[in-house]
């Protein structure tokens, strides 16, 4: 529990981080720093995207696996770090 908190704190302390969500393999959010509605929306949508991306990578090369996914948009950047059981979503507002 404490480790999770510490991770969140470390990430949150970076520049421009708007929100962090930890999601399990089914796409259900476990821990979040955003409000419920946004969390649910992000979790649901990004989960599908990550599944798709992961399957794409593995289809091309079955030995390969997805390690990181970054979605850059006009307003912010969404970073997704997938793992075996969970994945972490970080939304950052790039400062430039």
């Amino acid at each position, binding site marked *: 529990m404490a480790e999770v908190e510490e991770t969140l704190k470390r*990430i949150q302390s970076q520049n421009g981080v708007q929100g962090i969500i930890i999601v399990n393999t089914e796409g259900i959010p*476990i821990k979040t720093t955003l409000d419920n509605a946004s969390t649910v929306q992000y979790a649901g949508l990004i989960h599908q995207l990550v599944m798709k991306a992961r399957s794409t990578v593995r289809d091309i090369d079955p030995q390969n696996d997805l390690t990181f996914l970054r979605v850059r948009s006009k307003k912010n950047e969404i*970073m997704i770090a997938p793992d075996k*059981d*969970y994945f*972490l979503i970080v939304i*950052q507002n790039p400062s430039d």
Partner: protein
Amino acid sequence: SILLLNWELSNQDHPEDIFPMVLTSATQELFDCQADEDVTGESPYKLLEKDDIIQDIKTRAAVSDFSPVKQIVLDYPEDELLLVYDRDFTYGQSFYLVLTPEAKDRILNPPKPETPEVFEKEVVKTPEPKPWISLGSDKEIDEEAFKESREKLLYKFSRVRRKFGVPVCFSDRNTADAKDDYLECASYQDSRFSIKQMQRDCGMQAVPRLQSSSAQTQWKFQKNIFTQYTPRELSVEEKENILQLESLKNFCNSVTPRVLQALQQEGIMNVFFDDWKALGTAADDGDWAGKVSEGLMLYQAFTDQKYTKDKKICSINWHPTIYGKVQHLIIKISISLKSNNSLLKASFILFYTFSDPSNPQLLLECPDDIFAFEFCPSDPNIIVGGCINGQVVLWDISAHVTRLQGTQPGKKVSVNTDNKTPIVHYCAVSALESSHKAPITDVQWLPTTFEVTRMGLPVENMYNISAQVVTCSPDCTIMFWDVRVSSLVSHSASERRPIMDQKTPYSVPDTFKHLDRTWKPLFRVLQGFRVQYKMSTEMFYLQFPNLKISSIHIVIVYSKPNSCCDGEIIYTDWKLGKDDSGRLQSAKPLHCFSIHHWLVNTVQRSPFFKDIILTAGSWNFAIWKEGVMVTTPQVCTVGCWSLSRPAVFFIGKEDGSIEVWNLLEKTNEPVQIHSHVTNAKITCIKPWAASSKQHFLAVTDDIGMVRVFEIPKTLYVPSRSEVRQGPSHFPYLIARPR
């Protein structure tokens, strides 16, 4: 012979009831039974009379052939005897006599032989319905059948004749209401006997199991149109559980470095930023054909022999709403009477349109020279102007707006048939006594976001209209005026002047009738502390912020004429406060700068940043951030910000040239100088954004010419960073010592 007869009768081999005999031919003739003549084989029977036979016997006695049968004949009951011709000698003789009547019958009428049954072929016949045999079921049916036990009862209701056609109203009546209205035979449990129902008839119907559901879908291609869903969520306990899991800890540990690296990458550099594209805003230009002009191009020039020649144009304004096609823009200029040998006594505000550069479309008549005028922001038909004699003037041009709008290219300008420009008389002018004592140098409408009460407090503007005007003048006062019906401004009866019944021409609208000649300001701001200066300070322009804050500051520019005097920029709050003696007094100014060493003629807030102000004085112009100040020395008469680029502004000079400054490119000199645009001093510059493709700059000068320039695209299309960065490009100006 009897014996013989008997013997013959008993030994005969013939039946007993016949007697074969021989008949002689004589006998045969006698009895007409001649063989093969009377009796034949086919008809062998002959009936003989008994009497004849007896006669014969008597006559011939023993000779008669019948003698043997004499006794039988005598005993014969009947009268006739049968004689049968036995042709075939069946019984031994040629004849035989039938002795008994029964035999006679038998021989004569032989029983018909039974005809043998004809065995025909059996034809297959359709089985005919057998007649129905009642086995008792008809009784059951009769029991169950439903028959009327009595005749149907018929009730006929009719009304009295006089009530025919009258509407009738039926209503319900509960029989339980009235006591004896009905008789009831209620069923009750009779204890005397009880019948147990052993068998009961009940009907059954087999119904298929049915399940119905519905979905919203198209007809041809059936798929769900809408799906409603809610997200799955974990309960709090589950979340707690998961958070405790070892796998989550491992996950966090493994994932953190990646994420941190990515985040830091972001912070270091923006990899998606296209440097090339952002390099020049000129790259946005689509006009590579080469016709890109870098500088201001003269678009139109307006002048009028009658009205504007040799006159100093003090102020110019674009009509805020009438625009449309390029040729259709309306501008207004105001003329002040400067030249001595003019033929006209009155001065005017002229309306020009692009489509007709040499004729003004409308003239607004002023009681005196106008230094400044402004369109009302909420109603462009109202124009307020400040006169040289200190009066404030109001016009209402709503009657002529259609005419102004009607001057479109392609349409025949039929309105101007009499070739006379319509003159609009002013609707209202302020009371002479309460106006300024010096020429009004600037007039501004309060923005629609707030308004000011009698005490000077800004309050929220309920109606979102601009109804208040501020004027300033070198008589050291700033006055606030309200154009609405003066219910707020209540004065004592003595102060109020009677409204004189003036003979206004019919064409003057009554919009401001309530104000005409009696218009008094809401309140005035007196700069009492300036008493050590000469009273002939000139106050120039005012500017207001558009902020809705509780205490609003205005920037007033003071400047003093003649040599050795400093123009000052005063930043003050106009609220009226109470000083020690209890009199209403205006507040002391907050800041006071004197950097312009001569007259200050421009104060303008940047349209982009609320706290950046451009002031231009005779020797220099300065850009202010409220509180911070930057100057550069240039000789200029007037300046204005560009409407679309925060770092661009235009400066007009004494010698008739226009400078274009772009702070992003150069900070110590203008990027463009258009020298000698006109021969005279430039008195007013106003930019206008007519459309996204065209921006204009109107420039007026001292000799009555109005020039409209088209601003090139490079000067009005802002670069991406310009609007965002904002005043960050100003600070590095501050560092330069002046």
